[in-house]
């Protein structure tokens, strides 16, 4: 440790690599914290955890008993065990007793990305509520057509304050806090939308994962999605090799050609069967008249509705974009995690060894950018995988029941996990327990001896 500090002073190690070396050391010995404890007032399983993005100090949790609570993870509320264990009780909590609170489970609780003055909760009672943190009052209420599975706000947004909401309805809705109304809806999914994430490289790009197994990319400034991830399109390696790009282009060109040929084909009887979702109805109506006008009826931006590519064989239950915005990790109910290269839109075929992932609820993944690790809740264990090789490096066993959500704080290198057993556990780098009081006394005694 001292050698490294000396090297940094001399200039042998760059400051960035020094700090990432320290961080990776700390992360590699993460274990259940023996000096920090979060006391959770929740009486239901914890569905969502988030530490605020501005200071990294306040943890917001949402639970199945319609309660949301905020904790200060840097300052403890009281100490126990002779001053060694820091207990963090909740600063406040809002639940069913609150007049305007949610009635059913809260599936998603997120901070307003600009400051901690507001937070947004989405619940199975079809409402999204915006709360003022200081007065704990509901400022705004949005009614959704179905159970809200996930809400998200863009951390990069400077020109909009839209909440993207994924519900059991096939359309993704954008709610505007500034005006209190819905901005617009994004159609294209063929089943409920379980996960929503904003891109970390552009404030206009939204990524949604649906129960139909598709992952779609939307630019909210225009209609229709511009990319649908297809698990059969893959590249061998982190980035596509330069020479193979021409081969990949040929494949995509031939695909679009055949798609063009197919849409000019005769209208087929079996097609009338699948008129689910709004987009498909438009399609069948458009096919009645002559072949050439079939394509004119469909708005060019909505052509993506015809793309039925799936990213997973089951529902997409978790999405996470890396901080540099170049890769996307997606978890599905087929118990697979896939790494996608966002530049090319291909599956990088990294195999994360999984036995089972929970299939009914969405899970929250966490990424540690410096050490390139992803933390995945797999039933009762949280596993850390290396992103590039897919090998499991750490396993965190501590919860009594399935883990639903996890959040990694890269500032302190701490991992917070919440599960069905109503506990929020803190995993921190282990520090040796020192008995300061005794040695101080003996030192004093020696010093005071005459």
């Amino acid at each position, binding site marked *: 440790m001292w050698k490294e500090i000396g090297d940094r002073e001399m200039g042998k190690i760059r400051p960035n690599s020094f700090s990432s070396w320290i961080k990776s050391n700390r992360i590699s010995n993460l274990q259940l914290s023996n000096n920090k404890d979060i006391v959770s007032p929740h009486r239901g399983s914890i569905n969502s955890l988030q530490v605020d993005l501005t200071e990294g100090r306040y943890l917001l949790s949402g639970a199945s008993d319609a309660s949301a609570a905020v904790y200060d993870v840097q300052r403890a509320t009281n100490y126990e065990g002779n001053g060694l264990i820091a207990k963090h009780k909740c600063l406040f909590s809002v639940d069913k007793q609150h007049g305007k609170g949610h009635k059913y489970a809260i599936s998603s609780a997120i901070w307003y990305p600009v400051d901690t003055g507001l937070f947004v909760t989405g619940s199975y009672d079809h409402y999204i509520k915006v709360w003022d943190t200081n007065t704990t009052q509901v400022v705004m209420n949005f009614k959704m057509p179905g159970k809200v599975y996930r809400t998200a706000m863009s951390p990069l947004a400077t020109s909009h304050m839209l909440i993207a909401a994924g519900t059991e309805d096939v359309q993704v809705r954008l709610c505007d806090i500034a005006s209190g109304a819905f901005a617009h809806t994004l159609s294209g999914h063929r089943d409920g939308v379980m996960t929503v994430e904003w891109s970390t490289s552009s404030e206009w790009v939204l990524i949604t994962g649906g129960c139909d197994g598709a992952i779609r990319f939307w630019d909210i400034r225009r209609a229709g999605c511009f990319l649908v991830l297809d698990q*059969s399109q893959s590249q061998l390696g982190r980035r596509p090799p330069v020479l193979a790009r021409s081969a990949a282009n040929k494949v995509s060109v031939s695909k679009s050609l055949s798609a063009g040929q197919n849409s000019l084909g005769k209208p087929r009887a079996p097609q009338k069967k699948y008129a689910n979702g709004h987009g498909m109805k438009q399609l069948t109506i458009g096919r009645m008249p002559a072949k050439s006008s079939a394509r004119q009826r469909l708005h060019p931006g909505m052509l993506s509705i015809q793309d039925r590519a799936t990213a997973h064989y089951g529902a997409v239950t978790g999405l996470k974009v890396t901080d540099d915005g170049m890769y996307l990790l997606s978890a599905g109910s087929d118990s697979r995690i896939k790494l996608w290269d966002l530049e090319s839109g291909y599956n990088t075929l990294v195999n994360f060894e999984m036995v089972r992932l929970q299939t009914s609820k969405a899970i929250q993944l966490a990424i540690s950018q410096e050490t390139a690790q992803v933390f995945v809740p797999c039933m009762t264990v949280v596993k850390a995988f290396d992103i590039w090789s897919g090998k499991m490096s750490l396993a965190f066993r501590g919860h009594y029941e399935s883990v639903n959500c996890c959040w990694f704080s890269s500032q302190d290198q701490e991992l917070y996990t919440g599960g069905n057993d109503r506990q929020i556990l803190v995993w921190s780098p282990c520090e040796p327990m020192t008995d300061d009081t005794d040695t101080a006394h003996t030192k004093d005694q020696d010093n005071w001896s005459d």
Partner: protein
Amino acid sequence: MDKGKKRRREDEEIEAVDSDANHSLSLEQNLSFSDTLVALRMMRAQFPHIDKVSIQPFILQSQLYSSVKDRTQVDRELESLRRDKVVRVFKLNTGQDDHGIMFLDDYLKQVEHVVKRMEEKKQCDLQVFKWFKVHVIESKLEPCIGHQELYALLSLGGRMKDEHISLLINSGFLTHQLIDPSMYWFAIPNIGSILKGLSQGRKELLSLLNRRRYKKMMLAPLEKKHLRLSPLDMRFHLRDLIGSGHIKTVHTPTGIVVRVSKD
């Protein structure tokens, strides 16, 4: 030096594919391989002989994971083999993520065999199988195909009718997707009873281990046991369950011990 022995063994076995010497090699000695193609060839050679059903050897993707250490490498090599038309990958309906891998020559042999059997039964209109073989198998390398594309590719052979697609489905070449009615999975014809045996055999093997007091057993005696409900042999099932994570192997001084994984 272990690898040298394995390689010599592999070389002589690749030449003598049908020799009975394969069956005498124990799983303990050749549990892991260095390369996906080598693993595929070895496992193809070790495919058990089934009496009632005639089927060409196929390998499950979970078996590959149990033999080659790096799973990402397996996925990538499998992808490049698929693109080079050496193997074909099929999605099986026996479980969440089961994929069956067959060498392309074996698959074409299987197709021939099934078509010949249908000719003997004097069923009509077998030209759709020829179109299928020539146009669809050659150009569509993915495990699934959309209805429109299938129709378009088959039409390259001749006049297409809806009955032709039903014929393909009835003879086992295609199956409907449950989620999406307009997409089909490619399937290996004549494989139905074996897939049933596969899932029953898995359950039987897991219950065999679970009934033990400590839920573990030495690999050598376990391999000699015979499964009642499955036509596939114990080695096949062991590789499959190790690769999918239900069973773990532990190296002990007396040999390899197989136990049920707790996670």
